[in-house]
């Protein structure tokens, strides 16, 4: 099997597992929407304040809960499945890429659901032509976040404190993503160019992709 066949097969298996378990659709999305509801309750009934903070809350919750999507444990993370992949000669880089593709698709779907919920609940004042740049930045953030989550998941594979440790690793490294995502919308509102922020997101995604593919083999050795 070629590299891309392995990659697409792993992504397909991951997506079918998500279809069966519904980790993202049945757990992460409702939990994030509840978190969206908590913010206005904590702020009080200040309607202008709520609509002003809407996009910022979207990015903060998007990245925090997106981390949960990226770090979710699927059946393919079990030691038996890892051994099976190794015995079958699956390229660790293909495994990283496949996990990244399926995770990015799920994270992007999660962002879309969260965005709709935020627009409905917060009635934010969005500038004209905001949708295309927001979707573009959301796509790049989803890719970067999943790359980071897949890397952190591999680094902490099999450890008892995996969940909290992986979050501790991902959260600070995700800062360029949250800055890039939120500043893209800010730039549209200020009628400024979004190019620097899109380039920041692209550079982060590219650096993480190089690190993920390059370090996939040593990570596989460590996690078995």
């Amino acid at each position, binding site marked *: 099997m070629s590299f891309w066949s392995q990659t697409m097969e792993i992504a397909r298996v991951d997506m079918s597992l998500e279809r069966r378990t519904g980790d993202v659709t049945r757990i992460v999305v409702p939990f994030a929407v509840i978190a969206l509801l908590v913010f206005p309750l904590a702020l009080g009934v200040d309607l202008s304040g709520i609509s002003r903070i809407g996009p910022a809350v979207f990015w903060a919750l998007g990245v925090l809960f997106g981390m949960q999507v990226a770090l979710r444990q699927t059946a393919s993370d079990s030691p038996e499945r890892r051994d099976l992949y190794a015995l079958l000669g699956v390229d660790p880089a293909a495994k990283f890429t496949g996990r990244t593709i399926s995770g990015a698709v799920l994270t992007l779907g999660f962002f879309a659901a969260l965005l709709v919920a935020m627009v409905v609940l917060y009635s934010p004042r969005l500038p004209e032509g905001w949708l295309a740049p927001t979707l573009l930045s959301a796509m790049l953030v989803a890719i970067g976040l999943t790359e980071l989550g897949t890397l952190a998941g591999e*680094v902490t594979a099999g450890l008892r404190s995996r969940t909290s*440790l992986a979050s501790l690793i991902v959260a600070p490294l995700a800062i360029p993503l949250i800055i890039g995502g939120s500043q893209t919308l800010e730039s549209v509102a200020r009628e400024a160019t979004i190019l620097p922020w899109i380039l920041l997101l692209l550079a982060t995604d590219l650096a993480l992709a190089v*690190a993920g593919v390059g370090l996939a083999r040593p990570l596989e050795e*460590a996690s078995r």
Partner: protein
Amino acid sequence: MTRVRVLFAMAGAAVAVGLWFAFTAPTDALQGEFSRIINIHVPSLWVAFLAFGVTALGSILWLIRKKPRWDRLASASAEIGVLFTAIGLFTGMVWGQAVWGRAWDWGDARLATTAVMFFVYLGYLALRRATPDQPARAQRSAVLGTIAFVQVPLVYFSVNLFRTLHQTQSIRPDGSTMPPEMLIAMLINVLTFTLLYVALMAARTEIAVVEEAAAPVASMAGEGISPPRLGEVEDV
């Protein structure tokens, strides 16, 4: 151990000289005595950058060569780097409170990115603590130590990349913006802190060798089974 003692004696003498220069150098006309913080703040963060650079180098060398000394070098340097980042952050906050009127300013990209770098390396240390198996610990932390280094240039260039409260670099290719006496005092303290880093590294890597020797050897398959003695075996 003698080598470590000699290094610490040299570092101690250098700290005394550095302090003398720090307290005798002229102060800034506007900031007054608070400007002397530069003699701790800048050298601490210089050592932090150096330490994280050594961590990345040790991590890469471990991934290539798989020699335990590279893992010891990377982990010792990360610990010292975290310590000096904390000192740099703390002195920066004290200085900020005195000069800007607040210890923490979200408009300051240097402050925010340094805090992020601090947490990234805390994660590195937490990962090492959470991984009991030595080769796996070395391998995993080497991967993180390599990736985490991207934070260092981001922190250094943050004052140029973002509109920020923090001043840009005082020493540039075209010269320095500081008076020569203040610059000399700061550079002497940079050297002093570098020597202190070397002494701490020597001590920490020696401790790591002792720790590794004292660590229980991982159980091997079949270790609990001992072969029967000759007298116990009956002929059948």
